């Protein structure tokens, strides 16, 4: 609907010139320039840490640049705070939602507006606008009770009620099923046709090719290319973004292993220990030795609880979880570790690692049992230091030394350390949640490769992830969590994206704004 040749006719809306922002030790943006025309869908493409978030925070008035300037419709634009940016017509949908769980939808929307109408009038407007854009919402519901997709609708509606000229979307599809992505794209196209410019931030290449009119590609804070994504292949874009060629992980030949399944879960039903958590309902699957089971699902559908139930932090009836035929549901994490369970939760700081403790101490925390680091109640520090050094060495963790506190490591490096620490314990059952979240492409490929290597050595691997591409790349079988229930696992071979989307719960009651939701799904495959 919006050809590139028309772009020249449209007036310029936002111009960014020579923007530079440095933090201690890192230059987040270096001399960044680009323009967005009215009604244009413009992509900002780059890896984690490439500087996309800093750039949009500058445009939204949350970060002040060190140098450089911006113009909005030709006039100088230097918002000192988000309020000024909103007044100039900029609205933003955040990557990590800026919502308040204990407040209602209407209250959340009111908080994002300068002069909200009274609650009753606002509720009526929320209903009207949400219906008009195919994103139905009940203004009286608590946000804490909504699904991730519904929460994003709240953010979008909050932006739309301000009638923005520029809508910034920071990684909007990471929490959506493929069907929901299709509906979101239809909504964005409708907005674009009405003249609203959209700055779309993502590292998902096919999405950008399907949706965006033009793209600015960032690498380590610098603009490395500006292009029309439809004229490039996904591979071209990936190489521009990463700056090197990537090799997909190699699959060792599958081996046959004797004995009962390494992990059997049947009828696993436990209440969530967290407020606004999702309880698990009748989950069942088996994983054989040497097999990788991929579990997909939109965030907040029971992933955290499933990891807790498998690691032993959340206990269940004994028969609900079996390891090599033994009932272990009632056992805690340490007993399960003795049987060869290792796990890496999604939250790195505070769950997988203690932030203020050194890498050596963190290595001890989970490696004590299987690596024999404690003798008669006393810590064997020499062996513990050697274990931590081994993990740092083998998994290419970039750190000045093993005495460094866990919180001082970058997200990707800490993730490599956590995964390495678990996988260096001769595991029989590996459970990981979001193993490559926030990790750069090269490190992510390395982590996937070790998971496959451990499987080849006979471990049963359960990978919980919201990255479908990752699951399709490494899993043998595939299942999806939806509202605490798990779909029946199916072989990955021959699965279509449409089927995966339905396993994840389909469109969760949304309906398309312009009736063309289906077409983008193919681009996802």
């Amino acid at each position, binding site marked *: 609907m919006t050809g590139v040749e028309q772009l020249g006719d449209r007036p310029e809306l936002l111009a960014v010139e020579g923007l530079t922002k440095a933090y201690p030790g890192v230059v987040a943006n270096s001399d960044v320039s680009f323009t967005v025309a009215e009604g244009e869908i413009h992509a900002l493409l780059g890896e984690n840490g490439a500087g996309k978030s800093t750039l949009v925070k500058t445009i939204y008035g*949350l970060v002040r640049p060190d140098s450089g300037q911006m113009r909005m419709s030709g006039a100088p634009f230097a918002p000192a705070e*988000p309020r000024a940016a909103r007044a100039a017509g900029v609205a933003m949908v955040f990557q990590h939602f*800026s*919502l*308040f*769980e204990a*407040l209602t939808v209407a209250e959340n929307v*009111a908080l994002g507006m300068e002069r909200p109408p009274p609650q009753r009038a606002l509720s009526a407007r929320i209903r009207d606008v949400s219906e008009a854009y195919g994103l139905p919402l009940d203004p009286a519901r608590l946000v804490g009770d909504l699904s991730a997709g519904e929460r994003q609708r709240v953010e979008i509606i909050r932006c739309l009620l301000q009638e923005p000229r520029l809508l910034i979307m920071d990684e909007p599809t990471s929490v959506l099923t493929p069907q929901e992505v299709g509906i979101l794209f239809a909504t964005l196209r409708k907005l674009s046709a009405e003249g609203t410019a959209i700055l779309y931030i993502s590292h998902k290449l096919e999405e950008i090719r399907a949706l965006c009119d033009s793209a600015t590609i960032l690498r380590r804070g610098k603009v490395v290319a500006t292009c029309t994504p439809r004229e490039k292949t996904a591979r071209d874009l990936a190489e521009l973004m990463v700056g090197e060629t990537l090799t997909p992980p190699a699959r060792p030949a599958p081996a046959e292993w004797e004995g009962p399944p390494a992990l059997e879960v049947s009828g696993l039903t436990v209440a969530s220990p967290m*407020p606004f958590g999702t309880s698990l309902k009748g989950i069942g699957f088996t994983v054989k030795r040497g097999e990788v089971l991929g579990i997909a699902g939109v965030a907040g559908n029971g992933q955290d609880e499933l990891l807790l139930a498998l690691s032993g932090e959340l206990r269940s009836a004994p028969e609900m979880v079996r390891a090599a035929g033994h009932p272990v549901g009632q056992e805690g994490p340490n007993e399960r570790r003795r049987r060869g369970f290792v796990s890496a939760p999604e939250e790195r700081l505070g769950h997988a690692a203690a932030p203020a403790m050194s890498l050596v101490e963190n290595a001890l925390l989970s490696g004590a049992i299987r690596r024999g680091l404690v003798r008669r109640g006393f810590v064997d520090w020499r062996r513990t230091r050697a274990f931590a050094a081994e993990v740092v060495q083998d998994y290419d963790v970039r750190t000045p030394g093993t005495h460094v506190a866990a919180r001082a490591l970058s997200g990707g490096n800490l993730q490599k350390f956590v995964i390495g620490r678990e996988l260096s314990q001769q595991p029989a059952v590996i459970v990981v949640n979001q193993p490559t979240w926030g990790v750069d492409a090269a490190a992510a490929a390395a982590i996937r490769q070790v998971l496959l290597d451990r499987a080849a050595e006979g471990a049963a691997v359960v990978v919980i992830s919201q990255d479908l591409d990752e699951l399709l790349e490494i899993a043998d079988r595939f299942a999806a969590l939806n509202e605490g229930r798990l779909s029946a696992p199916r072989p990955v071979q021959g699965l279509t994206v449409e089927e995966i989307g339905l396993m994840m719960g389909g469109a969760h009651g949304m309906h398309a704004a312009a009736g063309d939701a289906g077409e983008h799904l193919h681009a996802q495959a």
Partner: protein
Amino acid sequence: MIGSIDPILLIASLMVASTPILLAALGELVVEKAGVLNLGVEGMMITGAIAGFIAAVETGSPFAGFVAAAAAGAALSLIFALLTQFLLSNQVATGLALTLFGIGFSALIGQGYTGIRPPATPRLDLGPLSDLPVIGPILFRHDPMVYVSLALVVAVGLFLRRSRAGLILRAVGESHDAAHALGYKVVRIRILAILFGGACAGLGGAYLSLVRVPQWTEGMTAGAGWIALAIVVFASWRPGRVLAGAYLFGGVTVLQLNLQAAGVAIPVQYLSMAPYLITILVLVVISADRSRAALNAPAALGKSFHASS
């Protein structure tokens, strides 16, 4: 002998006994709804008690005393605000330090004021209402601060539920990061809430030294600040329940004093601990539905905020 207790007088004195805790708890409720845990209520109360006492004695005006008490409580809470909001010190430790400081500081400046009677706080003249049978003595023969505290319950309730400023305050207490991302001044809002909490605690303290007792003695708050803190939590951060909790505590206190005076054959120690036990028990039962209580609890309570992320 129990028959010697006059129920009308009992209820009337219940309202007087409850007002200090009610004022302090309402202030702390607003502070906690903004996501700040200030354990210094006891220290701010006793500082307000002595500041109000001195001002009232020196000027001869109880009104000046209450104003000075609110100012002194707010000033003490400002120390807490600077330490926790700008220097990012731990809120629990800072609050405890504030309590210890307040108790010591009030003893120091109050040295010349023991054994003096403050000027009497006049009762509000409500004309014919005060002469009504039963209802008159219970409801309409009090000093103005009792009515101020009741009005404050309604005002805080309406502010938090209905006003935009109250919505922003709750949002800051729920998730300071999200509120900051939307452009709200988290630190400024929290400092204002802390000052309000300090002023309320100061008023509560002054009510003790100017009306309830009325006299200055060292350590005279005797844990009232801690009870106010407990009431806020067990009342699930609701002004109406804070009122109920404070009046329950005040009621049992007055009742047990009357029972002691009437010479009931229960050891005095049991009677003295009764208000604390009964209040906590009743509020625990009321807030037994954990999921609903958690919903009302400010999610960012006690967490430090810095705009660096």
